[in-house]
């Protein structure tokens, strides 16, 4: 009885993974069959004309995630270094609590903050018609992934052994040399998985992005134009899933977005964990 329960529970998790990927593939199959892989390169998404190009959303997703990481990595690393190497006891735990607080705010609340603070701010300062754009999504995401990077880095820095710190100090290394030559390289595997996890989170975040990104299917033109309304994979799913009929090509195309998203994020999280596991053994 006990054994049966334990084995079933373990099996359930395996079944869930297989079922999820299986059903996503099955539902998106008509879409892949219809167009092959060509829609990956096309930016035209007009459901009423049966044009379902994914390029705009894919590029949008990656741009938003890149902006988020570009801001969150330096800030998160600096915050982690500051809390482990500069601050002492109570301040350190205060910073940690601050990060836990940021991590605990639900994503839809970030969306609310973005929609009513960030967008008006961007709109008036950059003289835009609308604040809805990839930059806003990236900025919002950077706050959301900051705790991941900071906490993982902090843990990795704390794990650098006291011997290595002492040795570095006894060799007469200055504070900054020690940081760059000993602490950060030693902690790098942990930092790297933190960054990868943050990337996965940024790509998969839905509510906040959906509220601020504008949901217009355009490939940024020119490619670095981040100030126009755009679309990400997640925002497209969130916006359009309600109005697509089950079994239609539109539904199938949205499932293809979901499958793509799942495959990308699974790859990223596997990379994050394989690398750290290797280091541990």
């Amino acid at each position, binding site marked *: 009885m006990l054994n049966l329960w334990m084995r079933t529970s373990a099996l359930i998790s395996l079944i869930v993974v297989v079922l999820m990927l299986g*059903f996503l593939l099955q539902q998106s199959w008509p879409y892949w069959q219809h167009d092959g892989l060509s829609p990956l390169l096309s930016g035209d998404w007009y459901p009423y004309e049966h044009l379902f190009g994914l390029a705009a959303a894919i590029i949008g997703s990656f741009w938003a995630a890149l902006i988020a990481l570009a801001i969150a990595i330096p800030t998160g690393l600096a915050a982690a270094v500051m809390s482990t190497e500069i601050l002492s006891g109570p301040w350190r735990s205060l910073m940690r609590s601050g990060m836990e607080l940021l991590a605990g705010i639900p994503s839809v609340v970030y969306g609310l903050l973005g929609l009513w603070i960030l967008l008006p701010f961007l709109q008036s300062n950059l003289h835009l018609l609308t604040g809805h754009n990839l930059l806003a999504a990236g900025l919002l995401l950077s706050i959301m992934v900051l705790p991941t990077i900071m906490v993982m880095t902090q843990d990795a820095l704390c794990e650098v052994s006291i011997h290595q710190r002492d040795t570095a100090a006894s060799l007469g290394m200055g504070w900054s040399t020690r940081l760059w030559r000993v602490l950060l390289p030693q902690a790098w595997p942990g930092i790297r998985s933190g960054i990868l996890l943050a990337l996965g989170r940024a790509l998969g975040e839905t509510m906040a992005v959906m509220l601020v990104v504008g949901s217009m299917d355009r490939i940024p033109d020119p490619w670095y134009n981040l100030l126009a309304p755009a679309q990400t994979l997640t925002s497209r799913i969130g916006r359009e899933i309600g109005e697509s009929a089950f079994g239609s090509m539109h539904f199938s195309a*949205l499932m293809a977005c979901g499958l793509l998203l799942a495959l990308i994020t699974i790859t990223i999280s596997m990379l994050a964990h394989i690398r750290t596991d290797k280091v541990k053994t």
Partner: protein
Amino acid sequence: MMTERCAKTLITMLALPALLLPAACLLYILFKGIPALDWAMLSGSSQASAFGSITALWPQITGSLLLMLGACLLAAPVALGGTLFYALIANVTQRKALLGIMHLLVGIPPVVYGLCGLIVLVHMLHWGISLLTGMVILAVIILPMLLMNSVNAIERIPGGKTEAARALGLSNGQLIRRVWLPAAWPGLMTGLLLGMARALSETAPILFTATVFSGVAWPDSLFSPVTSLQTHIFYLAQEGANAGAVDIAWASAVILIILVTVLSFGASALRNIRMDG
């Protein structure tokens, strides 16, 4: 000495957003939300059904809590069973496989769980947009974190205790009931509370599978849709033309954050018990 000071200053400057943002975000949400909450409470008595008054937010609160409780009731037994499988039966390969699957599940974005729920539960099993669908989806989402948390909790029990129990001839069942549960319960509860907080804050997966905007005070059955705080915030946030609606979104955000914070405070309190014991 000079470079050290420069480096430290530079790092502090870079870290400044991380120091200020948590407080700024929280204060701004409270600043926007608490007046709305207050107003809602005041007007709640005179116009009981006023759009967004505190009495009108009760369905959303109960909806969120129902979804959360259902998800935990479904996920906890599976997580515990999986943990015991990991600790008692599994060999090294199976352990690696189980953890690998959990990492994989954690990596998949919640909205994808929502899509799968939509295909399988809503359309194929004909459960429709319903409370039960939302519970199952949220249960699957929190399963990996529950399981990994409880594996950690069990692994932290000193090996000597288990060995002593085995030497006394305890069976698996007795070992779990008499040794592991008393030693690991704070860790297990910590995981459960964090899972509850997570279930409360997930929005995307239940948006199109479990919730409607309004009109449900108390779901008639597991197969009727509910309203929830999370999705309420989402719908009202976009009502830019109606300032009152956005105020209620802020008020809902405050209530949601209070609920989540209570759960995570509970979790950290339990974590401290474990450290002392």
